[in-house]
């Protein structure tokens, strides 16, 4: 490594860890960004793509789609079993890895390393706090909050399938509410267990990946692609096949994660439309879902063609505005005072239960720990290359302390508020009207998860308006994941270049929509989503190594 000493920063720090000089600590490598790229032309379209990452990723994705379509009955169970095997056999590893990521992030936050600035000591932020937070939150979690905000708390409160968190007593058994003290205890456990899945742990996974990528690209001068964060481990070999495999795996996980979520999400959104507007049998054919995929892909296309500033950021801000509107509506139309009071209790329960919930060994709640927690962790980790890289791209100019505060702590609080309002309202309906409540019907009596949110909204005033807003929000959340995901895939397959021809990002948006539509029409969405989530295990292993690389990389940075 060579010192990058164009700046007159001084090493006058009195901190325990010696502070290096210079604006940032550039890694001295012979690799030139784009040296493996090829620039073919298809008609008038010029391309600038990494060879072999672009071609192999594209071919692998197409091969998986074709094989899944052709051999659905054989392939489906294989991928679903693989995911089940990984989450039930390696649940301890996922839980331990999750805990490690949280501890590493909190350790960096409170240490002098928090003063390192992404992009070097004299870098300035590219985005305001509002725009930055809107983008990172919309890409990372939005759609899940819509789907699970009602479902998960209600499920843990009254699951009749014996998979409640920590094997605690549930609040409703065979349609009969427990005594008030037991109901309150079950409610607190349900909220703590839900916030645990949407709080520090998932955001720590994203933060580790995002911070590593940002550090190795903006401070160390390596290409903005997933392989760069493993440079301290693999050294120059990272420019060869070990790096190609990491990048291809990242493209695979991102594309299938997005395409299958888009396909399944379109089905859920059309079910919601059918429910709200009373259209019977809307999901009997795939027409409505395919139309939704075309709309979402079209909006994502406009967004990426308008760029980060004019498209992705604007849409993310609109998205946040709509989400705040829906949140405010449920808060005001729901049991407002109860929810406000419960928020602090829920947060307290989360922090007091986090030790028990995150303990990887000696537990008996297999259904919760393996079926929910390990599944979520594998899911977050498989999404981490996409979300991490997108967050990295928009975080230049922030200090590490600001970064961890805004990527770990604030999102955790936002998730806790969201879960309190949506889950709290739903549980309140359940307590007041028990088996008469819509959420009881959709979550406990029968399991129709895609209608749980709409069920809760249907029992509040102005249900038609709020449900329509919820459907629009679901669609916009998909667009904000789809556009940022396509930008990430484009950058990885261009070898870390962010100035590749626009036609490439257009290709990836359309390709993602086509994969989603093909799998929706031909079947296999759930199978390939399972395959995508299965990439969580190999990524979890390399992310543990990445923590070491991250700390080592931060130690050699000046703290201006």
């Amino acid at each position: 490594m060579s010192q990058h000493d164009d700046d007159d920063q001084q090493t006058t720090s009195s901190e325990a860890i010696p502070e290096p000089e210079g604006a940032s600590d550039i890694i001295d490598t012979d690799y030139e960004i784009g040296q493996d790229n090829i620039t073919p032309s298809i008609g008038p379209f010029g391309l600038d793509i990494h060879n072999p990452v672009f071609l192999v990723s594209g071919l692998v994705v197409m091969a998986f789609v074709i094989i899944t379509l052709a051999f659905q009955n054989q392939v489906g169970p294989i991928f679903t079993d693989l995911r089940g095997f990984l989450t039930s056999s390696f649940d301890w590893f996922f839980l331990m890895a999750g805990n490690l990521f949280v501890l590493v992030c909190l350790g960096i936050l409170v240490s002098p390393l928090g003063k390192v600035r992404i992009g070097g000591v004299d870098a300035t932020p590219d985005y305001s706090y509002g725009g930055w937070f809107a983008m990172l939150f919309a890409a990372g979690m939005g759609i899940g909050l819509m789907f699970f905000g009602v479902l998960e708390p209600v499920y843990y409160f009254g699951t009749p399938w014996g998979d409640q968190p920590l094997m605690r007593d549930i609040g409703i058994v065979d349609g009969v509410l427990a005594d008030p003290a037991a109901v309150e205890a079950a409610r607190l456990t349900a909220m703590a267990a839900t916030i645990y899945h949407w709080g520090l742990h998932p955001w720590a996974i994203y933060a580790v990946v995002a911070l590593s990528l940002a550090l190795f690209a903006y401070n160390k001068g390596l290409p903005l692609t997933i392989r760069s964060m493993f440079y301290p481990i693999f050294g120059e070999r990272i420019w060869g096949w070990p790096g190609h495999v990491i990048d291809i795996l990242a493209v695979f996980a991102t594309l299938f994660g997005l395409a299958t979520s888009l396909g399944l999400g379109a089905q859920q959104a059309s079910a919601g439309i059918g429910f709200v507007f009373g259209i019977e049998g809307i999901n009997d054919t795939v027409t409505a879902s395919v139309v939704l995929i075309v709309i979402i892909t079209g909006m994502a296309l406009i967004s990426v063609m308008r760029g980060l500033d004019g498209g992705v950021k604007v849409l993310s801000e609109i998205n946040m505005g709509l989400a705040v509107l829906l949140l405010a509506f449920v808060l005001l139309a729901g049991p407002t005072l109860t929810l406000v009071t419960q928020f602090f209790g829920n947060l307290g329960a989360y922090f007091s239960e986090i030790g028990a919930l995150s303990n990887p060994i000696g537990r008996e709640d297999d259904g919760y720990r393996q079926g929910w927690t390990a599944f979520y962790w594998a899911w977050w980790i498989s999404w981490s290359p996409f979300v991490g890289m997108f967050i990295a791209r928009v975080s230049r100019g922030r200090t590490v302390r600001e970064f961890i505060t805004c990527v770990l702590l604030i999102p955790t609080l936002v998730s806790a508020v969201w879960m309190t309002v949506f889950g709290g309202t739903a549980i309140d309906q359940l307590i007041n009207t028990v088996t008469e409540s819509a959420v009881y019907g959709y979550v406990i009596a029968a399991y129709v998860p895609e209608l749980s949110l709409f069920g809760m909204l249907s029992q509040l005033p102005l249900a038609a308006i709020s449900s329509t807003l919820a459907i629009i929000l679901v669609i916009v959340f998909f667009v904000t994941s789809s556009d940022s995901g396509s930008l990430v895939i484009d950058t990885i397959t261009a070898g870390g270049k962010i100035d590749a021809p626009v036609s490439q990002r257009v290709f990836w948006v359309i390709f993602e929509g086509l994969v989603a539509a093909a799998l929706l029409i031909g079947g296999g969405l759930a199978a390939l989503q399972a395959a995508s989530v299965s990439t969580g295990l190999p990524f979890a292993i390399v992310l543990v190594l990445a923590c070491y690389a991250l700390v080592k990389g931060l130690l050699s940075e000046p703290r201006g």
Partner: protein
Amino acid sequence: MYRKVIFPVDLTHVDDLSKALQTTLDLANHYKAEICFVGVTGTAPNAVTHTPQEYERKLRAFADEQGKAHGLKCSATACISPDPSIDTDKTLLAAIDDLGGDLVVMQTHAPNALDYIWAGHGDTIAAHSGASVFLVR
């Protein structure tokens, strides 16, 4: 007639700019005008630079080199964009305005079918800039 000639530079393809560069130097010489080399770079590392600051230094060195070699007043302005694939035209137009350039000389590609859908950088600058624009094929 012209006081400041703006010459947009892509440092990754300097070798391809010889014809446009020579045109710029000749025009500046003829009109005793200043040349301002303007480069748009992404925030992420690229083939020629690791950081935007390094890009700025290289662009300045390029401008100084041209100024010394041809006895002309040359300056450099580096513009940083988080998404240069999309924002280059917008950034260049703003820079031309801010710098008060009255002539822009730009290298551009030979026309092709794609120009009907997506205009090239030169086409967009010529269509939207208040300055005179000289496109060099």
